[in-house]
C-alpha cells in the first residue's frame, strides 16, 4: 500500500511539474506538441571546462544513427567540424536547435564545415527523436556508453549525466578554434556561430 501511495504522490508531483513549467518560449513547434518534456529552468552551466581555444581536440569514435561509427579524425584535413552537444532528446531547446541547423546546410558548406551532433541519449531514442524532426543531414552520435565519455573529455558533462548545450569548432588540423558552452536554457545565436566558422575557413 505504501508503495502505491508513493507512486501516486510521485505521479502527482510530476503532473504539477509538467503543468507548472510550460512557460518556456522554446520548443514551440506544433510538430512537437505533447511530445516535449518541459524540465523547467536549469542551472545554466553545470560542468568544469577542460578545453581552451588552441588545444588539440580530443579524438573520439561513437556510434551514429546511420549504423556506422563516426570518428573526429576522419574529418582531419578535409572539413572543419562543428560539434554540437545538446543535453537531451525530447527537450524544448534541443528539439529546435538541430532542425534550425538542418535547413542551413549551405551556410555550413560555405565554410567548408560539417556538423556532428552528439547527445548522451541512446541510439533508439535519438532515432525516434530525429525522425520526429523529419531527419537531419549531419551525423548524429550517441555518447550513451560509456556514458558521457566524450562529453566528459570535452568538459561538458553535467552532474546529471547529460551534456551541456555546447558548440566547438574544430579546424581541419584538429585544433579547437571556438568554444561556446552555452546557457542550457537558451538557443545559441546562429549568426555568431556562422561568423566564427567563417573566421576559421
Amino acid at each position, binding site marked *: *500500500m505504501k508503495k502505491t*501511495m508513493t507512486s*501516486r504522490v510521485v505521479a*502527482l508531483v510530476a*503532473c*504539477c511539474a509538467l*503543468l*507548472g513549467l*510550460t*512557460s518556456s*518560449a*522554446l520548443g*514551440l*513547434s*506544433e*510538430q*512537437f*506538441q505533447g511530445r516535449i518534456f518541459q524540465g523547467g529552468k536549469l542551472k545554466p552551466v553545470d560542468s568544469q571546462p577542460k578545453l581552451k581555444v588552441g588545444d588539440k581536440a580530443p579524438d573520439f569514435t561513437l556510434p551514429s544513427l546511420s549504423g556506422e561509427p563516426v570518428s573526429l579524425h576522419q574529418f582531419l584535413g578535409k572539413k572543419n567540424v562543428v560539434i554540437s552537444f545538446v543535453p537531451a532528446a525530447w527537450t524544448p531547446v534541443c528539439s*529546435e*536547435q538541430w*532542425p*534550425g541547423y*538542418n*535547413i*542551413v546546410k*549551405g*551556410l555550413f558548406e560555405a565554410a567548408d564545415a560539417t556538423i556532428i551532433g552528439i547527445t548522451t541519449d541512446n541510439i533508439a531514442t535519438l532515432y525516434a527523436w530525429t525522425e*520526429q*524532426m*523529419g531527419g537531419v543531414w549531419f551525423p548524429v552520435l550517441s555518447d550513451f556508453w560509456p556514458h558521457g565519455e566524450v562529453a566528459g573529455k570535452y568538459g561538458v558533462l553535467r552532474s546529471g549525466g547529460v551534456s551541456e548545450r555546447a558548440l566547438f569548432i574544430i579546424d581541419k588540423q584538429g585544433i579547437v578554434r571556438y568554444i561556446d558552452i552555452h546557457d542550457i536554457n537558451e*538557443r545559441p*545565436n*546562429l*549568426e555568431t556561430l*556562422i561568423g566564427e566558422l567563417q573566421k576559421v575557413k
Partner: protein
Amino acid sequence: MNQRGYGAVWLVILAIAAGMAFVPDCRAAGGPPGVGGVLPEFVLPPPQRMEEVQYLGLKEKVSFKIPETRAEVVIVEIFSMYCPFCQKEAPAVNQLYQIIANRADLKDKVKIIGIGAGNSQFEVNAFRDLYRIAFPLFPDTDFSVHKLLGEVRTPYFIVIRIKPDKTHSVIYSQVGAIGDPGQFLEKILSKPAPGKGV
C-alpha cells in the same frame, strides 16, 4: 495509515487537482487575440527591402504597426526557422501568397506578414532565402511580440481585417497547417466582416 488518514490524503489530492483544473496553461495566459478581438499594440521593425515597403504600403523603411499596412486583410504567420512544422508549411504559405498575387481583385487588399518568434534578422533571412519567401518576414529576437500574442505554438495564423479608419478586428485564428491554400483563402475571406468587405 487509518481510514481517516487516507481520507485526508485524498482530500489534499483532490484539492490540488481541483486547483490545477483552474490554473490556466501558461501559454494561454493572456492567450492569442480571439476572433472579434484586436491585436495587442506592438511595432515591427522597418522592412529590409524596398519591395516589402511597397507591398505593405509604407512610405519608406520605417517601423510600423500591422494595422497601418495598406490592406484590408492581413494574414499574420507566427513562425520560427527552428520549427520543423513551419519549415514544412513554408511551401503552402508561399502558394497562398502566389494565389493572392495572381488575383487582381485581391493582390492589393490581402497581405501576408511573417513574424519569427525568437528569431534574429539573420535567422529570418536564412529562412526567407531557403524557401524563397516573397512576403515580408520580421524578427522577434527577444520573443516580445510572441509573448504579446499569447506565446502561441508555431506556426500560428492570425488574420485581421482593417477598416478604412484603420481600426481592425481579428477575423480568424488557428494553430498549425493551413491545409489547402486556396480553400484557406476562401475560408478567411468568407468570415463575417466588421466593416467593408474585400
